[in-house]
């Protein structure tokens, strides 16, 4: 019982480790692969026995049927537009607020910061109805404003930027800027922004991804087909009236997932580093 086997674990333990991790990895990737398999086979392939597991050549045929039924490209462009505007605005406002919380002294600072953190724990659904009413009063129902404006700055981004700025930006640099007579905004753009570029990258990918993937709120406020985001367009494809044409549905799903997959694989290092540095330290 004592002094268990020194440093070198048993070969069986080692095999079990790798087996477990490998199964986990396969389960993680398989649905992506399978999306493409079903998307590239004939329409009934999802329910063939034994299952199809090889890629075929009908992808564009299937995707063509999806294009007939939804305004796929319009929805994709809508999503690109909404996600880009939200991301730009979140980066701007969250970094300004994070900078203020990290480097400025002002009254009620601690209280206000904890207030920001507290809002993280309020469920979104609690405010759905009145927000809908506000949007109706503003005549913003079925416009992009309804999706973009409430998302323009968020508590998570502020928290995250504050954590990053307080460790990465040295106060002496800011003081040196002050002594040179630079104004507050000038110090921000010339001194702070260049230092926090990595934080911008990570928060940017995060925000873009979350906005791109959001379903509930856009689904509530966007009514017209030409205003749909890509997620709503996908959901609309899922109808029994086509006898559940999984070839069509999954070819479109694959096309809608591909952009994010590419972005993620290119920036995965930053992304995971950001996730782990910002999420928990409190």
């Amino acid at each position, binding site marked *: 019982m004592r002094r268990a086997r020194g440093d070198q674990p048993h070969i069986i333990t080692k095999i079990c480790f790798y087996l477990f991790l490998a199964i986990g990895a396969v389960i993680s990737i398989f649905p992506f692969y399978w999306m493409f398999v079903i998307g590239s086979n004939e329409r009934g392939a999802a329910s*063939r026995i034994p299952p199809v597991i090889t890629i075929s050549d009908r992808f564009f045929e299937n995707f063509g049927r999806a294009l007939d039924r939804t305004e796929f490209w319009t929805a994709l462009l809508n999503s690109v537009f909404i996600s880009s505007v939200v991301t730009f605005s979140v980066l701007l406002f969250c970094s300004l607020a994070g900078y203020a919380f990290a480097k400025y002294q002002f009254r009620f600072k601690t209280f206000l910061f904890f207030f920001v953190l507290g809002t993280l*724990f309020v469920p979104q659904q*609690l405010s759905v109805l009145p927000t809908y009413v506000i949007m109706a009063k503003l005549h913003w129902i079925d416009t992009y404003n309804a999706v973009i404006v*409430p998302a323009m700055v968020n508590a998570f981004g502020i928290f995250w930027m504050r954590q990053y700025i307080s460790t990465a930006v040295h106060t002496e640099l800011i003081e040196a800027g002050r002594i040179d007579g630079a104004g507050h905004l000038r110090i921000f753009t010339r001194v702070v922004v260049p230092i926090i570029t990595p934080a911008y990258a990570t928060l940017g990918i995060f925000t873009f991804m979350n906005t791109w993937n959001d379903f509930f709120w856009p689904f509530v406020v966007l009514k017209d087909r030409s205003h749909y985001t890509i997620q709503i367009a996908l959901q609309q494809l899922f109808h029994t009236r086509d006898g559940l044409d999984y070839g069509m549905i999954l070819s479109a799903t694959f096309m809608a997932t591909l952009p994010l997959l590419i972005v993620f694989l290119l920036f995965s290092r930053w992304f995971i580093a950001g996730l782990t540095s910002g999420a928990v330290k409190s």
Partner: protein
Amino acid sequence: MPQTVPASAGKVHKTSWLTESKRSSLTAYLFISPFFVLFAIFGLYPILFTIYLSFFKWDALGPMQYMGLKNYEFVMEDPVFWTSFFNTLIISAMGTIPQLILALLLAVFLNSAITRFKKTLRVLFFMPNITSIVAVTLVFSALFSNNGMVNWVFDVLGVDPINWNSGWWGVKLAIAMMIMWRWTGYNTIIYLSGLQSIPTDLYEAARIDGASRFQILLSITLPLLRPFIIFTVLLSTIGSLQLFTEPYVYLGQSGTSSTREEGITMVIYLYTEAFGNSFFGTAAATAVILLIFTIIFSLINIWASRKIGGSSDGGAI
């Protein structure tokens, strides 16, 4: 010289109408104001209005009519609400408890010194989290279709096929698995960063004292990981009580706007009351009840996860 000039050198020169330190705090308030303005309009006001609305009968168009606690009574006496409540609880428990345990195991394995390809594995485990919930639901609904792959695997293994699309357990299991697939990797990464923050000399000291691997896990790893565990438990609790998209997309396929009994959740109930039936008052009451449940379950789960790894007061969150 630099050191002699104070950072916010106010007080001295009163040439401008604002002292430097006042100007500095004004700037700070300006920088943080967008959040507070937006939160006031789209966060605070709606919450207060929801609570107010829950005492009225309203269809979003006509005049409001005071109901007292009638909306709450109506919701609490509606069997569909309780179905949605228990569905939410059952799906949450099935989707998150095994998920967090699995994530913890994966993280411990990934962190162990003998594992290679760590970086690649991290990326692969995290990949499910970047797919949208709608996409996950569509892919899984194909996997879980009646003659789909999962039932074929069951058939090969000699297990009876499960009716994933309308069975009472089948629907819930299918939804729970979608949640697990999308979030296990995320939690693995969070736990992994927690594990990496534990100083290695603690392990070495324990090893010298003759502690077994299992003892080390119980008395060093788990207690030091506690803040991370509480964080994930809290996020999972809040997230799964708000479950909407997976069941809504998964069961809404038939073109009917309502969701069937096996998969209706509290937020779907809320959504149907408001946007399906125009009962904004009862929907608001449901939202308030949902908030109360969220607080209760968060507190219970925080309390439970603080017990993990003994009751020694380590991290004080």
